[in-house]
C-alpha cells in the first residue's frame, strides 16, 4: 500500500480518489440518487441548481445529479465488459500462438492483421448495423476491435518467456501445454494484462460514449454520460449548458485519471497502443 502511494505521487492519489468516487457513485446510485433518472416533469424543465435539485434539471425536467449517478453505471459497465473480454480473448490468442508457434502462430497473426485493418469505431458500427443498437453489442464489438492491441503485446512478451528454462523444463517433463501456459506463462504476463486493461478502459469509455452520442449505444431514456452530452446539445445551444458540460466533465475526469494511473503503472506501451 505504501509502495503504491509512493509510486502514484500526490497527483496520482488525486486521480485514484476521483476513480474511487466514480465507482462509489455508480455502486450506490440506487441508494443516494434523490430522483428517478428516467422520469421528469414538464413543469420542472431547465431549473438551476437548488437544494431540491443539486445540479438543476434537464430539458425533460429530470434531475441532472441523479442522471449523472445512474449514468456512471452504464459508463463504467460498458468499458468493463470491453476490457474483460479483450483481456481474456487477447491472452488466449497470444498464449495459443506462442505455445504452438509455426502455422498456428502465423494463422492467428494474419487474423489479428485483418482486425487491425478496421478502425475500432467502424467495426463497432458494423456490428451495430447487424445486431441493432445497444450497449452490449457496442461493448462486444469494441472488445473484438481491441484484441489485436492486447494480443500483440502479450505475444511478444510471452515469446521471450517461451524459451526460458522455467517453461522448457516442465515441457521436457511431459507436462501439457495448457497447464504450463496457465501455471507458468500466465503469471508472468499478468502485470502486462492488468496495465493494458487500465489503459484500454479509458479508450473504451471514450469510444462507447461516442457511440452513445451517435445514438447507437445506450438508448434513451436510460442515463449515460455520452448520451447526456448528446441530449444536452440542444439545451446547450439554447443557453442551458449544465447537462452537456457536467456529463462531459465526468468523462474527461474519469478518463484523465485512468490515463494518469495507467501511465504510472506501466505506460501506454503495455496496451499495445503507440500513443
Amino acid at each position: 500500500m505504501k509502495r503504491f502511494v509512493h509510486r502514484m505521487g500526490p497527483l496520482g492519489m488525486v486521480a485514484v480518489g476521483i476513480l474511487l468516487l466514480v465507482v462509489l457513485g455508480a455502486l450506490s446510485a440506487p441508494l443516494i440518487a434523490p430522483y428517478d433518472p428516467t422520469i421528469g416533469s414538464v413543469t420542472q424543465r431547465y431549473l438551476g441548481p437548488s437544494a431540491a435539485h443539486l445540479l438543476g434539471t434537464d430539458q425533460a425536467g429530470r434531475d441532472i445529479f441523479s442522471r449523472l449517478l445512474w449514468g456512471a453505471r452504464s459508463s463504467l459497465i460498458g468499458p468493463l465488459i470491453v476490457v474483460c473480454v479483450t483481456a481474456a480473448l487477447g491472452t488466449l490468442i497470444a498464449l495459443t500462438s506462442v505455445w504452438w508457434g509455426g502455422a498456428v502462430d502465423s494463422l492467428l497473426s494474419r487474423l489479428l492483421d485483418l482486425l487491425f485493418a478496421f478502425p475500432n469505431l467502424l467495426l463497432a458500427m458494423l456490428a451495430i448495423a447487424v445486431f441493432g443498437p445497444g450497449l452490449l453489442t457496442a461493448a462486444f464489438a469494441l472488445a473484438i476491435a481491441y484484441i489485436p492491441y492486447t494480443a500483440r503485446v502479450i505475444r511478444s512478451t510471452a515469446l521471450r518467456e517461451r524459451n526460458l528454462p522455467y517453461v522448457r523444463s516442465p515441457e521436457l517433463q511431459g507436462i501439457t501445454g495448457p497447464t504450463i501456459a496457465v501455471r507458468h506463462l500466465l503469471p508472468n504476463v499478468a502485470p502486462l494484462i492488468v496495465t493494458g486493461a487500465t489503459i484500454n478502459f479509458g479508450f473504451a469509455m471514450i469510444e462507447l460514449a461516442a457511440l452513445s452520442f451517435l445514438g447507437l449505444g445506450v438508448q434513451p431514456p436510460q442515463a449515460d454520460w455520452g448520451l447526456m452530452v448528446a441530449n444536452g446539445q440542444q439545451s446547450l445551444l439554447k443557453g442551458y449548458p449544465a447537462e452537456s458540460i457536467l456529463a462531459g466533465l465526468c468523462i474527461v475526469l474519469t478518463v484523465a485519471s485512468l490515463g494518469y494511473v495507467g501511465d504510472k503503472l506501466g505506460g501506454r506501451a503495455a496496451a499495445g497502443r503507440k500513443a
Partner: protein
Amino acid sequence: MYVLRRLLALVGVLLVSSFLVFAAMYAAPGSPENFLVQGRTVTPEVLAAIRRQYSLDDPFLVRFWNWLTGVLHGDFGQSLTNRQEVGDLLANRLPTTLALVAMAAVLIVVLGVGLGIVAGVRDGVVDKIVVLGSTVGFAVPTFFAALLLMSVFSVWLGWFPVFGSGEGFADRLWHLTLPALALALPSAAVVARITRTAIRDERDSEHAVMAIARGVPSRIVMRRHLVRNSMLPVSTVVGVHIAGLIAGSFVVEYAFTLDGLGTLLVTAVQTKDFAVVQAIAIVLVAGFGIINLLVDLLYAAIDPRVGSRHTA
C-alpha cells in the same frame, strides 16, 4: 519490392474484409424485403417480385460475386431507403470528409509537433502548461470538444457557423475550422507529449551535448540534431493518429451535422441500409489501409534501416 508486397497485402486485406462485411450483412437478422415494404401487409407475389428486383434469391456466393464485380466497376448498388445510387451518395459526401480529415491532419502536425518542440526545448512554465494540457486534452472525447468549441466560438462569440459544411473553398475552410480543431485536439495532445519526450531524449544525447560544446549555433543544433532525430518516433505516432482520424470523423461530423461520410454511415446504420453500410465500410477500410501504407513508406524514407530490414 517492399512497396509492391505491401500493396498486394492491402488488396488481400480488402478482398477478405469485403467478403466478411458482405457475409455479416447477409447473415443479419431480419430480411431486406420486409424492410423494403416497411411493415405494410403485401401479397406473397409482391414480396417475390421485390426479391427478384433486388436479386435476393441468388445464392450467397453469386450475390457476393455480383456485388464485388459491381464495386470494381464503380457500381456500389442502390440505397435501400431512397433508391439512390450508393456511388453517387459516396461521391457527394466524400469531399467534406476528406477536407475535414486533411485539415485535422495539418492541425495535428502543426499543433502537436510545434507545441511538443517548444515544451521540449524550454523548461519551466511553458513546459508545464503543455504537459498538463496534453494530459487533459487526451481525455477530452472529440464530441465533447466539438460541443465546447461550438458553444464558445459559434454561439457565444459568433465567430464561426454552428452547422453545415459550406460552399466553395474559403467558406468550406471557415465552416470546417471548428470541427477539424475538435477532431485534432486529442491526437495533437498525444503527439505534443511524444514530441516533447523525444526532443528531451535527444537533448541529453552525446551528439547534441557535443555539438553545443563545440559551439555550433543553437539554431543549427535544434534543426539538425534535435528536431530531425526526434522525428523518427514522432512520425509513427502522427501516422497512427492520422489514420485514426477516419473513425473519429464520424463523431465530429455528427456533432456539427456536416454532410460527410460519417453522418451518412450513422443514418445508414440506424435505418439498416446495408448497401450503404457495406460501401462505406469498404471505402473506409481502403482509406485506412492506404494511409497506414503511406505512413510506413514515409517512415522507411526517413529511416533507411526500416525498408532494408523488410526486404532482407
